């Protein structure tokens, strides 16, 4: 579905963020991308929809090569790829509904969007999505009046309004508390399953990644050092990704809501498979 071949990104400052990354994601597959800060996780997903221009290498969505597209062809490719952001990146002064409808911008013309005259089908879809994420009573509120969890739900609805085939998710829970984080991750994975969406999820929280994401890719200094099941994240593998640290201590002691140990979450993932 998504195929990344030998992707390299060197910034003008001389920093190399990605060194020949190759990765494949099947239709409907959700992968977690973990790695230390600065490993190139954000750069990698932004190279997929070309918010960042890769230095070399190729990206394919189905059989379409995204690298090398420009103008309206690039925009048409982008609307097949939904993106969800760490700080939500909602347009703060617009209403919830306008934010969700902005997911349709790739499909409607300039004047239609200028006068907010979106097609009936788009409005219907947006309302259905707001129902699905549980925000149907907030449609005319301004985005900056919502709580963090609600904002991220709007962000998810906006991405899904694009009717994407692939979701790029950049640290969806980094600004949320542990409980809301789990709720958002659960919603995301459920929606991906419902719609058979492929997703690449950048995530800091290893425990959360293991709980919700069956396949994990570990990135270190711009290179993939691990690609395998979440159950394979042994202390040795974590040391390989993040560097030396005592990984035997549990990292999930702060969630009293669903007091799961890492092994319990592994069981859950195994059961799901």
């Amino acid at each position, binding site marked *: 579905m998504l195929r990344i071949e030998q992707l390299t990104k060197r910034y003008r400052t001389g920093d190399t963020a990605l060194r020949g990354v190759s990765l494949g994601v099947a239709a409907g597959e959700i992968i977690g991308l973990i790695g230390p800060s600065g490993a190139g996780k954000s750069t990698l997903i932004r190279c997929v929809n070309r918010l960042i221009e890769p230095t070399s290498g190729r990206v394919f969505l189905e059989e379409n090569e995204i690298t090398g597209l420009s103008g309206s062809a690039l925009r048409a490719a*982008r609307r097949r790829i939904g993106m969800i952001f760490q700080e939500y990146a909602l347009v703060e*002064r617009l209403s919830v509904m306008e934010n969700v409808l902005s997911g349709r*911008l790739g499909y409607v013309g*300039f004047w239609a969007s200028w006068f907010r005259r979106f097609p009936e089908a788009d409005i219907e879809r947006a309302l259905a999505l707001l129902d699905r994420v549980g925000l149907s009573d907030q449609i005319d509120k301004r985005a900056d009046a919502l709580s963090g969890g609600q904002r991220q739900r709007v962000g998810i609805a906006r991405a899904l309004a694009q009717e994407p085939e692939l979701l790029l998710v950049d640290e969806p829970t980094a600004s949320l508390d542990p409980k809301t984080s789990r709720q958002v991750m659960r919603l995301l994975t459920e929606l991906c399953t419902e719609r058979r969406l492929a997703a690449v999820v950048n995530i800091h929280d290893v425990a959360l990644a293991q709980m919700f994401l069956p396949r994990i890719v570990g990135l270190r200094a711009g290179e993939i050092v691990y690609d395998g099941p979440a159950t394979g994240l042994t202390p040795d593998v974590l040391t390989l990704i993040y560097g030396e640290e005592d990984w035997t201590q549990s990292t999930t002691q702060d969630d009293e809501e669903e007091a799961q140990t890492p092994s319990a979450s592994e069981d859950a993932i195994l059961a799901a498979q």
Partner: protein
Amino acid sequence: MSSVNEPTARHWSPPRLIETPWVRWAVVIGVATYLVLAVETIDVNWVRVSEGLARAGRLFSGFLTPDFTTRWSDIQQGMIESLTMTVTATVAGVALSIPFALGAAGNLAPWWLYGFCRGVIAVARALQEIIVAIFFVAMFGFGPFAGFLTLTLSTIGFLAKLLADDIEEIDPSQVEAIRATGAGTGQVIDFAIASQTIPRLVGLTAYKVDINFRESSVIGIVGAGGIGATLNTALSRYEFDSAAAILLLIIAIVMACEYVSGLIRKRLA
């Protein structure tokens, strides 16, 4: 031990602007000397001062008896000209400011466009309104058209600069998110940029309307039409009572504009 309890005499004084004492004193003495010498060169002609005071007395007594009626048709025409100049110049200025502001925002425009737009804005800002008005009067003759052009230019200098600075400070993640949906450039400007900058644009426009009216009365004095021209005529005919009426009207309108623009800005905050 004793060093802790002992009240040791450690001194602290705030750092001086000029550290070296002799430089500091040289600057102080130099400035004082210059002031004394400069004051000595001012030649006060006390006869003229007393004449001027007598004239000031007439001026002020004129102010106590403002005459709205004698020159009312002139005043009315001047006021209408000034208000027309203000409104048209503000509208034209805002319309031109928006593209220049977008071009002068470093986070959007390529370097060559940025340089060009910043250059135009710098020129528009560098030239003082009265000087610009004199140029335009020389080019297009007396009358409100020269005033309209002057105020349009000054609106670009003011609004495009402040708006461009505001655009440079927007939250880039909103722009990124809208671009990621596959939106075109116009749609990115509409959703991600305009939504963040329109409150500031409206506030600045309301403020500029009231500045433009004040300026329209000043540039009239150099021939660019409007109430300033009427005021200038009244003063040169020594019709202080009519001049007083004009000044009172200007003050009233400026205060009204300021009040309304304040209300608008408060509502948007």
